[in-house]
């Protein structure tokens, strides 16, 4: 086993590739998850998120590249996964055993398994009162919660969660997000795979965005939003003329009409001031002028749609079109 070091990041992935015949499910992903990160691993369905997570957990062998968990290779020994927990796709259990027995089995497979430990984990996810019921009678949400309980039994320092809110009702989704935030506050580094942008925006501080097996962005959400530049809407007394003026103005870009308003982006605030003056002078009197905050959803679609036309990975993209 390659020995881990205290200074090694919780998760480091370099040049990760997984091919199935001619199909590249993951086509060269580089990721670095730092201690304390709540990392959103974003991508549409089929982008390669789950395949990546499987490789990170040592379930499938990479075609090329390396995965290091706290500096150790999970394919060399399962001991590399000490301090790591999580689940890929939906958490799975033995349906003919009850919830408590499932947790006892998994705790035993970790070398521990005191009854108190199992009980506390069940209480944490509020399944103590259903612990004697067979798992085959559990709802999807209950299985997700049991999955979290099973992960907590390992006392993880790194938690890998693959779409943990998928299939949950709104209340369950909210509870899961709150739980993830709480776990992060307690010092657990979390990698959260999701295609739900609002979820990632709410709980994560950093994101990696994958599309067609390739990483198209990695960095802080705040930086991603900043990179989008400032976006504005304006309504005037003569929008057709206003559009012509906007397009002619220096420092103004991505002009388009939508929802009865004119949308544009500006590199600097001075350009907006100059534009407002030009509109008035051009006879298009301003009825409203509002700055718009970039949403992760918009940035995500900009990145993923752009990547479909661009084979080169984008490390620090500039996203111009937002609304």
């Amino acid at each position, binding site marked *: 086993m390659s020995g881990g070091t205290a200074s090694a990041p919780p998760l480091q992935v370099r040049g990760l590739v997984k091919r199935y015949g001619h199909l590249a499910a993951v086509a060269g992903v580089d990721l670095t998850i730092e201690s304390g990160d709540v990392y959103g691993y974003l991508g549409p369905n089929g982008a390669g998120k789950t395949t990546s997570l499987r490789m990170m957990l040592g379930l*499938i*062998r990479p075609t090329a590249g390396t995965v290091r968990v706290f500096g150790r290779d999970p394919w060399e020994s*399962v*001991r590399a996964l000490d301090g790591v927990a999580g689940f890929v796709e939906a958490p*799975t259990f033995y349906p003919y055993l009850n919830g408590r027995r499932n947790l006892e089995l*998994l705790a035993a497979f970790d070398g*521990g398994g005191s009854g*108190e430990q199992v009980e*506390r984990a069940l209480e944490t996810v509020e399944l103590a009162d259903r612990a004697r019921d067979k798992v085959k009678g559990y709802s999807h949400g209950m299985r997700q919660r049991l999955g979290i309980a099973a992960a907590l039994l390992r006392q993880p320092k790194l938690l890998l969660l693959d779409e943990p809110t998928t299939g949950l009702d709104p209340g369950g989704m909210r509870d899961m997000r709150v739980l993830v935030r*709480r776990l992060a506050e307690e010092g657990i580094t979390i990698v959260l795979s999701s295609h739900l942008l609002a979820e990632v925006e709410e709980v994560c501080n950093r994101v990696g965005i994958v599309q067609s097996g390739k990483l198209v962005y990695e960095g802080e959400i705040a930086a991603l939003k900043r990179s989008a530049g400032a976006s504005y809407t304006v309504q005037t007394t003569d929008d057709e003329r206003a559009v012509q003026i906007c397009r002619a103005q220096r420092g103004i870009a991505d002009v388009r009409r939508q929802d009865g308003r004119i949308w544009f982006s500006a590199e600097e605030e001075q350009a907006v001031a100059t534009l407002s003056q030009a509109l008035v002078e051009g006879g298009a009197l301003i009825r409203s002028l509002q700055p718009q905050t970039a949403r992760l959803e918009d940035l995500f679609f900009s990145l993923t749609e752009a990547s479909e036309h661009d084979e080169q990975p984008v490390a620090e993209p500039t996203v111009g079109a937002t609304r």
Partner: protein
Amino acid sequence: MSTGAVATRVPGVTGRTRRPSVFTVYRWEIFKLVHLRRTYLGLALSVAVPVGFAVAIHFRHVHHGDFAFATFLNRSGLALPLVILLFGAVWMFPLIVALVAGDIIASEDHNGTLKTVLTRSLERWQIFAGKVLAATTYAIVAILLNGSVAVVAGTLQSGFHSLQTLSGTTVSASHALVLVYVSLLIYLVPIVTLVFIGVLLSALFHNSAAAVVGTLMISLVFQLIGVLPGLTGTQPYLLSTQFNAWQGLLRTPIDWAPIVHSVWVCAMYGVPALVTAFLLFIRRDVAGG
């Protein structure tokens, strides 16, 4: 969900102090088998067949010379377990073995629980070893249960009397009982080989039914080859033939040659099957479930 006071470090638990072992897996595999319906299907078959046989003997006379020990079924209850060993090799014991051995990896792969256990603190070889031991234990229990029920049912039907060997000599009832149980142990050699073949198919297929049926089919194909014209010369090397090796015990003096032959022929099938299953399990991508 308790979001107000999440306890990730469970109080009172100071962390893991020991690594889990093959025995940990074995213990839980047995526990799971106890809770699986198919386990009882096989065991019920092990019990029902000798009981049914005893009932059939009671109501219907078995003709002399129909098969080995047929003559003695009405004279000694100890002939019954031996007769069942003869017939059980055709499909009953292969089916009982396949029900668990064929299922033990494939069902976990299919249901997705394999990925759950592979991300805990056990090496893959430990999980494999635990599963093979559990499947073997089940097969041993099924055979011994069958033999014991046959002894009891046969004794109730025909009495606990002396038994005539295949050489024509007569052995006392207590001696015959010992021979019955040693025969069962020798029978376990091809049975365990079949377990290994079942485990191989279980590791190969992601589908439990395919692995179970496949194990049964392999057993039947061996028997078919043995009766095909022109292929009878292969009989000594067929797995199906090794199910008759125990008959060497029922000769006077004991003929050890078929028993020794059975051990190495079974090893010829069983060891490659087990090694291949192991390599498949160790190296496979767990992407299903």
